[in-house]
């Protein structure tokens, strides 16, 4: 019973995403637009863009995950699915875990696969591409966990839009620092295993522990 709540949520979220491809494409389009704005703001000089590329690619990833987190639980809250999950008697923790994993599959994974392409738009040195893919892949897992928490805390509020960014961005600072730092180290030819291990450790911590907070927040939001 309780294990199936995890698979049910993941299955349902993926089904919804594929039935409405706009949901799948919007974060990526947003990411592409933000990246395209960077040369317009900084100038087209290749060296300047290459210097800033790791940071810019990571900041855009933070913003894109924020954008999709905002609407993550909205429709399930409005149509009563969340309430059904809580009253079903199954583990809300596993359902929360399902939301985190499905959010990563829908936003993090595609970004991880496409980010080498975006990195070349900013002429990032190719030595860093592998590190970028790894750091985005692991880092977005952290972002999905925190993003789902932000969504669960604000889903019952009609004016939650701006609030969620205020709640999430300070908590996501370590992801940005470690992610962008990892890519910079790779570009300068330094070893990245240590940092990558820390990032993976944090991701494991977040994916296992944050769903507890998400489950509690979902219960609170349903009482409003």
């Amino acid at each position, binding site marked *: 019973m309780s294990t199936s709540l995890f698979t049910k949520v993941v299955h349902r979220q993926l089904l919804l995403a594929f039935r409405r491809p706009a949901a799948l494409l919007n974060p990526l389009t947003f990411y592409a637009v933000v990246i395209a704005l960077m040369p317009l703001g900084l100038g087209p000089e290749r060296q300047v863009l290459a210097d800033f590329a790791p940071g810019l690619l990571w900041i855009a990833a933070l913003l894109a995950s924020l954008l999709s987190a905002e609407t993550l639980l909205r429709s399930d809250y409005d149509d009563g699915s969340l309430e059904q999950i809580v009253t079903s008697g199954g583990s809300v923790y596993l359902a929360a875990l399902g939301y985190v994993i499905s959010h990563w599959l829908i936003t993090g994974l595609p970004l991880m696969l496409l980010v080498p392409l975006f990195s070349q738009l900013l002429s990032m040195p190719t030595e860093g591409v592998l590190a970028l893919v790894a750091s985005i892949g692991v880092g977005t897992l952290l972002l999905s966990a925190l993003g789902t928490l932000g969504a669960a805390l604000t889903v019952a*509020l009609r*004016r939650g839009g701006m609030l969620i960014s*205020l709640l999430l961005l300070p908590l996501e600072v370590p992801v940005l*620092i470690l992610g962008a*730092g990892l890519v910079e180290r790779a570009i300068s030819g330094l070893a990245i295993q240590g940092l990558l291990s820390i990032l993976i450790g944090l991701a494991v911590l977040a994916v296992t522990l944050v769903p507890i907070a998400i489950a509690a*927040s979902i219960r609170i939001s349903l009482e409003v």
Partner: protein
Amino acid sequence: MAWTWFHRLGSPPWIYHFAGRVLRYLLPLTLLMLCVGAVWGLAFAPPDFRQGNSYRIIYIHVPVSVVALAGYYVMAIAGAVSLIWRMKVADLMMRVAAPIGAGLTLLALVTGAVWGKPTWGTWWVWDARITSMVILLFLYIGVYALYEAYDNKTLAAKACAILSLVGTVNIPIIYKSVDWWYSLHQPASIKFTGGTTIDPSMLYPLLLMISAVYALYVCLLLLGLRAGLIDSESTTNWVKREVLGEH
């Protein structure tokens, strides 16, 4: 029997009167300590041989920063207590701690900038400690904003408790990562005061000021708590008796 003190904490009128009794003695003591500490530090402590008199802002900056950091843990512990024991007083404590903490953090940043101008020649540098304080300010504002966004204040307190507990786990990680980030991007060279030791003639007023600001924090917390209790219990009989002065 041993638990009666604990059950009393659940009673708003008892807390209200207890806070009042504490404030009657603590408030004058705090003001005395602030005055003595400030005059001692700003007028009588010897000037620093390198920074001259500009270092004297340490007597405001350091106490405020120390208490601003400790305040987040006060808020998070109050949040944990409110989640575990459903205690109304803990809810209020957390609600009051957020704006006080944000104010102290802002004060720490402003006094730091004022100190930085004569010492470093600039108002602002992205130094590890300053960056951590900025993030702390955002964390405080986030808790406050989340509380204000909920109409039902009981639920607001629960949501804020969860957020501040997640923040508590995250704060050491943020600090470590900011430290690491700073060592990665270390700019030219900004050296804080050369020596790490501080002379007792400068240290004693500093310790007094730190104690004074801690006491001030407790006073502000209790004052806010009393105001919050009157507000949230405004329909009950004990508040009516209190306001009308009937005992």
